[in-house]
């Protein structure tokens, strides 16, 4: 990873301009050219250093619903249950964690009603209770990873 890739990652996690030629404007601030910036972003998307490039939408402000859910999954059936949970398109992320509550996933739906429905479907499919921990207040969201 060279200096320019670093600058792009460190300085372009937000603030990408909304104008006719935004890459040109951003490239000038980063000390490079429009075509080089586009090529670098494409390359980092291709090799997996970036997962995405574009707008990051706020689910609740869009009118949707979002919740963090946890389940206690018996070790012997963990992979099978993970497959069942992951098959729901509403499951945005899912992590195994070292706790008795060992499966933690984020559910995102377009309406609050759909979220409740989806929770019930997951309980029905897996035969396991889901603990629903919807956010009451957000104090900070802004992972800014420095490289």
């Amino acid at each position, binding site marked *: 990873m060279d200096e320019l890739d670093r600058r792009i990652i460190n300085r372009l996690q937000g603030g990408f301009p909304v104008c006719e030629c935004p890459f040109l404007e951003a490239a000038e601030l980063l000390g490079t050219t429009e075509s080089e910036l586009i090529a670098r972003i494409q390359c980092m998307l291709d090799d997996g250093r970036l997962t995405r490039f574009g707008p990051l*939408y706020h689910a609740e402000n869009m009118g949707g619903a979002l919740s963090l859910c946890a389940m206690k999954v018996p070790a012997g059936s963990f992979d099978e249950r993970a497959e069942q949970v992951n098959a729901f398109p509403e499951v945005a992320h*899912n992590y195994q964690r070292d706790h008795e509550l060992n499966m933690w996933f984020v559910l995102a739906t377009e309406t609050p009603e759909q979220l409740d429905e989806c929770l019930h479907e997951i309980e029905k499919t897996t035969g396991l209770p889901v*603990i629903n921990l919807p956010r009451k207040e957000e104090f900070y969201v802004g992972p800014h990873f420095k490289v």
Partner: protein
Amino acid sequence: MSMSADDLVQLDRRIVLATQAGLPLDARPYHRLASELGVEPDVVMERFRIMLDDGRIRRIGVVPNHYRLGYSVNAMSVWDVPDGNIKAIGKKVGALDIVSHCYHRPRHPPDWPYNLFAMVHGHSQEEVRYKIERIARLLGDKVRRHDVLLSTRILKKTGLRIGN
């Protein structure tokens, strides 16, 4: 060209659907998007500015894969703090530069006694433990108990999507 409120809701939805996976890597990405959607570029750019202003868009930019960048340890630190103080406490914890997300969530007794969540990422377990000690020191005797849940495996990571 004037659009009704309903047209705008529909247009915003189409913009979200077209860009939730990313913006075109084109020198004029908003113009490209506008031609795909069959609307004027100025209208598309105005919708982006409005959605940034009203918080429907958090930000526009690159989303790094923190695992690929060496941040391989992902810890969910969870804290049981008095509900009456949680606003002040949450703001302090969220302001730490080592915390990437910080939320107040409901307790779920008896399985889950914690009401404050702070996500911490690091290059090693040691680094993450050190960072979590900083949170513990900041909170001091406000904490009744806490725990750290390290992620042992990513099972899915597609990000938020509508219109599935």
